């Protein structure tokens, strides 16, 4: 059973958002890392870059495949997790903690309201596997 922390917001593309002041911390969910398998490479944007909600900001690669990752909220990148360059496996080991990918200063904090709650995301992933 994949882990789905209560205090986060979720997208249908399997990203999570943790709101921290006016910023959003973003990564991929436990369900996503489990489906991907061993992450061997993470492509992240540069700080200062701006993205619209649901726009691709990079990619996550396993041995066999490349998956794009999408920011659930619009805004400007303030920080990226540089350690993923050397240790991409953190995405598998700790997807909600050390495996975080980007911090975004939200241009529209209300974007978060249209995301899924933990319960809704859990239902969503159950439906996907059926």
């Amino acid at each position, binding site marked *: 059973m994949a882990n789905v922390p209560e205090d986060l917001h979720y997208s249908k593309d399997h990203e999570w958002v943790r709101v921290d002041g006016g910023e959003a911390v973003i990564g991929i969910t436990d369900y996503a890392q489990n489906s991907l*398998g*061993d992450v*061997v*490479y993470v492509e992240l944007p540069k700080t200062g870059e701006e993205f619209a909600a649901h726009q691709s900001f990079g*990619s996550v*690669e*396993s*041995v*066999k495949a*490349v998956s794009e990752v999408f920011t659930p909220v619009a805004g400007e990148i303030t920080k990226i997790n540089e350690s993923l*360059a050397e240790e991409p496996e953190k995405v598998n080991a700790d997807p909600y903690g050390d495996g975080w990918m980007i911090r975004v200063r939200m241009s529209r904090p209300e974007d978060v309201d249209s995301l899924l709650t933990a319960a809704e995301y859990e239902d969503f992933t159950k439906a996907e596997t059926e």
Partner: protein
Amino acid sequence: MVDFGGWDMPVQYPAGTIEEHLRTRTHAGLFDVSHMGEIDVRGSDAIAFVNRLTSNDVTKLIDGQAQYSALTTPEGTVIDDLLVYRFSEDHLFLVVNAGTTDKDWDWIKSHHAGESVELKNVSPDYCQLALQGPDAVSILQKLTDTPLSDVKYYHFSKGAVDNVDAIISRTGYTGEDGFEVYAAAAEGERLWKKILEAGNYGSDDGVLPAGLGARNTLRLEAGMALYGHEITEATTLLEASLGWICKLDKPDFIGRDVLVHQKETGLTRKLVGFEVTERGIARDDYDVMINDQPVGKVTSGSPAPFLKKNIGFAYLPIEFANVGQEIKIDVRGRLTGAQVIKTPFYKRQK
């Protein structure tokens, strides 16, 4: 689970591709390769017939020996790569790829030109399990009376594994020592479980079942070609750097004249191995650029888990097909540096 040549097969087991790959190099991995095809060739003309259809020299085999070879087209290109096993002077056994079994069978039958041979597609009759890695000998020895140290590399023995009749072949597709075990299809599940048990599956240094993902990363790291990628009906054996299984001075075989001519006039392109030197992973079908011009495509590209680098194969114009040549790979719109290096990328310590 994915469809592979019409077979339902696992990409990986719970341990994951990387762990399955590493465990095979350090201890042992077990692969269910029952999807492979098997063709029996019997009769007084067995050797002459197969020698005419394949590039390697079948007459060099002794009873109990196998060779890597290729079924060739009249253009010297590749119908399939395969292993040719000699049971006796009038009994050969061909092991071919799963996705090309039907094609190969039709090709072989249609090229039967009156030789005294009986051909049989026995693929459904066999299961095949590959136990690969430095611990393969000690694990398999627990299940057989055949003294495995007497079965030399690229040789095989008819014996029994867990009292089940089996062909025990010291061959494999990983670059490690190990065996491919052929037995009656119905025995596959039992042998699978027995080998896992004998190999201490579950312990940190025991055997791991390994899927298609690890099968691919292991063979790529070991510098081995995959049909449909490095070798196709559009690549000659010489271009594919398989001149070593191409015995041009044996009696005539399909495509021999073209290969002889190509050897004389020289190649225009050649398969090379490369490693990515900047950030990124080169993958199948990515463009290879030299001086901002696309000069070829990656035929196989992937991370190499044991070597901890990103590697691949590509065909390059002959003038660039040299160790040290710097190239760029177009990784989804971004050019990343790579360099041609010697293959095999990985060679096991003997």
